[in-house]
């Protein structure tokens, strides 16, 4: 309510993407819908995206947040690539969050790679949308300050 107007002049835009070969899209689709219901603009990329495709989509769509769902166990590998691609494209200011079947021991590794938050199985939709909203607001503030 107290956000400056420029922050909410258009709805926050989130890319929801699945990287790698895994087809478990239940979570990604539920999150995409929850975000839409919460007023976000959502671009769902579908499955089997490469890190490069996702980074490009985020840049082209001028996304406020990137949400990645991975249930294949290949999260470290793919997120590392995604972060590299975002950097290459000068888009590493777009915050990245990750969800999926991720062992607790990998949470710190993902955060070291620059991931802002990691959602483990059983996470509530409310917390996920709250975190994404906060990250989107922060980014818009920063972009405005530049």
């Amino acid at each position: 309510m107290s956000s400056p107007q420029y922050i909410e002049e258009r709805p926050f835009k989130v890319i929801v993407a699945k990287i790698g070969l895994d087809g478990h899209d239940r979570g990604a689709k539920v999150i995409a819908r929850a975000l839409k219901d919460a007023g976000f603009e959502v671009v769902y990329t579908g499955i089997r995206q490469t890190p490069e495709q996702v980074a490009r989509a985020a840049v082209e769509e001028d996304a406020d947040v990137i949400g990645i769902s991975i249930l294949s166990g290949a999260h470290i590998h793919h997120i590392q690539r995604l972060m590299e691609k975002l950097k290459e494209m000068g888009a590493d200011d777009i915050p990245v969050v990750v969800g999926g079947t991720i062992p607790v021991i990998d949470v710190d590794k993902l955060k070291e790679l620059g991931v802002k938050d990691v959602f483990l199985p059983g996470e509530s939709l409310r917390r996920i949308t709250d975190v994404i909203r906060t990250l989107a607001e922060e980014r818009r503030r920063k972009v405005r300050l530049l």
Partner: protein
Amino acid sequence: MGELYNKDEVEKIRKHIDKWESDVVPQWLKRVPERSNNFTTLSGIPIKRVYTPADLNNFDYEEKLGLPGEYPFTRGIHATMYRARLWTMRMFSGYGGPEETNRRLKFLIEHGETGLSLAFDYPTLVGVDPDDPMAEGEVGIVGVSVPTVVDMEVVFNGIDMGSVTTNMTINPPAPVLLSFYVAVAEKQGVPYNKIGGTTQNDPLKEFIAQKSYVFPPEPAVKVAMDLIEWSVKNLPLWNPISISGYHIREAGATAVQELAFTLADGIEYVRQLKARGLDVDEFAPRLSFFFDAHINFFEETAKFRAARRMWAKIMRDWFGAKKPRSWWLRFHTQTAGVSLTAQQPWNNIVRTAIEALAAVLGGTQSLHTNSFDEPFRVPSEFAAKIALRTQQIIAYETGVADTIDPLAGSYYVEWLTDQIEEEAWKYIDRIERMGGMLEAVKKGFPQREVADAAYRFQKDVEDGRRFIVGVNIFVENEVEDIRKVPLLEFDQKGIEERQRKRIAQVRSSRDQQRWSRALDELRKAAERGDNIMPYVLQAVKAYATLGEIMNTLKEVYGTYVEPPIY
């Protein structure tokens, strides 16, 4: 005719219930209200306070149940069921390379598993070689990497393929993996009529749920039917398809949707095979099914019973199958992966046991029990052994396998079986009106239904209408405990490297002329619309790799890109 309860008796019971609801129940409710004013099954079927013969109106025993081994098979497909032979304990397993998986298979056999089931890694599932850029970082993680016939040989090193049956959870590349299997069995000296097992080979549910599709729907179905036709004629013991509700359920469907969509898939396949000029009694006995056993205990058992009754009717009355074997719905069951929680993961052992019990009481032919550590990773030996032991305890200690279909006659279970059947027929009707499941899938109908159900479920959990222990009730702050779960560790990078080296070796040591001729002949056969199976087998024997064969087919059939439905 032949109603189980006579009308006067039922009328008496009805009056009694009315009196009980108006005189007795309110006094109890005044003292302690019920825990909910809207009890439903996990699928949303409303549940009454109590069930009586009055709920089984016009219940004709012979028509609805009969006896085990007899139409409509509600009570089981065999006359003796588990009194003669227990269900097959078939643990879905595989990780790393063929060496690691060979060790895991032997470990499970040694501990009493009675059938094999291979889990493949993602590159194998979608038909990509380990040295393809798309495979980077994914080789061997969720299953075993098997890109060549040489890898399959290592998987079965020291395992007699003539005396075990093997399920392979593989879909678009099923013709390739079956060819690997057949080629290795042949090398072991096993004749075709002794090769037993299952290829999942169910393309429609790939578009609905599992999403390891490669080709667009029509060629995908064509390829699957090729495999079935070839297998029926060449491998008498093979189950060429496992028509699967499991993935549909795991993607969020209700029990009713799982059942209805699976049977509708089956109906589509029967039509496709008949259209090829095959006699229904030639292939129907080889069709098999695969369902989920979720946590809502009675609903699951009722679902399995309804499934058998419905399929028997479909095969006998719709398709005119004559052999009783053609009316059987034989099925594998897996406990519900989605019911497992990352929170307090040890509780998953209990969930799996309850789900496995529902599958056994539902008359499953084979069973996989999930391991408690699967919310995190492919199971460790320790966890997989507990899951196997769970089945063995049910089989050898509880006594539930000693009489057939012991839940029959429960007013609730019979009512629920009828209810699920009735709701499932409604869905099947709708799909029929769309022109069958292939058309329904192209329209995105089942995809949308499943996505809606998944969202509804999540909202229910979110809003506290559904409880999950450790997730939204009896929650603990236990990050440190979860860290202590001993997860399976293996050198994924090293295995990926080894798999790349092996495939490079296969590529450089094969007869290049024979290899390129085989792929060329495969391409031409696919273009002509011939059955591709003999050509795939020929290419496999010429050491063509999984990716090479799939790429050849992709050139002819194209690839599928899914419209986003959520």
